[in-house]
């Protein structure tokens, strides 16, 4: 039996950090720095509810089975909060995805959010939908949703490639509030240019913590920060060691 000790150790440390930090955070709450994108998101959702317009959440074109599922899951964490915030609106949130499994999860998350809010009758199966199964066929399906559903907040939180720029542009043409976040580095640059507000790097994974989904979300964000600081220190120490002539 062989064990990848380093990888396994990092995973165990990460898990312990999350649990310990979630226990500590109840006694010693840590403030999160203000982030403009999340402040604007809250305002945009409130404006949509007041104006009787709809919020659209896109979970991207990534599949649920694969590395690209993580940003989609982060988008689902946001969905519960948005569904709860818009439950009293005439036009509840609509979610789209480029993957069947992701759309089913979106429907389940919506149903759960409405049940928790005591409004199970607000749920409609067509509020979580698949637009297309290839990246560009998904993107082509967006403009009809944006125009016919009177979308005023267009949130892109999921896995996107180059098509994410077009998806953001369609929202911008509609004069909707556009928030873009993805895990793909080149697509983040495209979203920076095309969306009003954007989540850079790991900020997409901080959505749950910033929207107060639960203490574990905050704890996992702090654990990420701590672990990243440790990795950066290790990289710097390694560089210094090699520069000074140390061997590997």
């Amino acid at each position: 039996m062989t064990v990848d000790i380093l990888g396994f150790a990092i995973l165990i440390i990460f898990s312990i950090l999350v649990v310990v930090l979630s226990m500590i955070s109840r006694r010693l709450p840590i403030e999160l720095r203000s982030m403009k994108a999340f402040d604007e998101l809250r305002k945009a959702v409130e404006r949509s509810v007041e104006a009787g317009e709809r919020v659209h959440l896109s979970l991207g074109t990534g599949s649920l089975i694969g590395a690209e599922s993580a940003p989609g899951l982060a988008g689902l964490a946001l969905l519960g909060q948005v569904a709860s915030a818009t439950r009293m609106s005439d036009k509840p949130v609509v979610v789209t995805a480029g993957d069947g499994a992701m759309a089913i999860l979106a429907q389940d998350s919506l149903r759960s959010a409405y049940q928790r809010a005591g409004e199970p009758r607000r749920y409609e199966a067509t509020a979580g939908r698949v637009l297309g199964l290839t990246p560009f066929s998904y993107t082509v399906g967006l403009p009809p949703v944006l125009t016919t559903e009177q979308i005023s907040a267009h949130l892109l939180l999921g896995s996107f490639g180059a098509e994410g720029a077009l998806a953001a542009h369609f929202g911008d043409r509609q004069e909707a509030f556009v928030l873009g976040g993805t895990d793909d580095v080149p697509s983040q640059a495209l979203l920076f240019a095309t969306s009003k507000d954007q989540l850079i790097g790991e900020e997409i994974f901080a959505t749950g913590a910033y929207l107060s989904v639960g203490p574990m979300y905050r704890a996992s964000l702090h654990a990420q920060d701590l672990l990243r600081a440790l990795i950066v220190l290790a990289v710097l120490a390694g560089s210094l060691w090699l520069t000074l002539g140390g061997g590997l």
Partner: protein
Amino acid sequence: MKFGSYLIWLTVAVGAGIIVLLGYFVDVQMILEARESLMHWAVILAATAVFMGLVNLMMVHWNRISTQSKDWIFSAILVVFMLEMLVLGLIFGPDHKLVLFFFTYVQLPVEISLMAILAVVLVVAGFQLIRRRRDLLSMAFMGSALVVLVGTLPWVIGSESEIVRMLGELRAWLTQVWAVAGARGILLGVALGAAATGLRVIMGVDRPYGD
């Protein structure tokens, strides 16, 4: 959802997650085989989900047609072509020349056209970015994008001009030092964020499958 059924989903999700995760770190035959089986099941379930997604897509557009919503004609075209491709695929198979004909002469040109539109959209977005946000970050973003674009133009390659040589060096410095360093930093954060998301699902904190 009732309390009992919620516990079943939670146990299945957490159990499957732990086995698949362990398979990446521990080289034990039993765990590897269990992981393999679970991955096969996941692929089958994902294929079923694609079918469910298509049914959902059909329902949405059928509703639009039956209520004669704005631009319902596009929904009608989508439904007709979707059914046509489904029937052709079921009768002749996905590799038949008739199925490939529609793919090559309808789907492919549409997607390539969108790629072309994307290039125009990005140029427009670049100008809008400077108009909307005149801060240091936007200026640096546009400045470096312009240097990389100009430095990649065909006339730069093979030119002996001193200015062109300096432009090429500046482009290489930006892409190989600054862009790579930034991308590595972002990737490190993204990897930790993705790991944290996965851990929350395995711990049963994140329950995208509902309560």
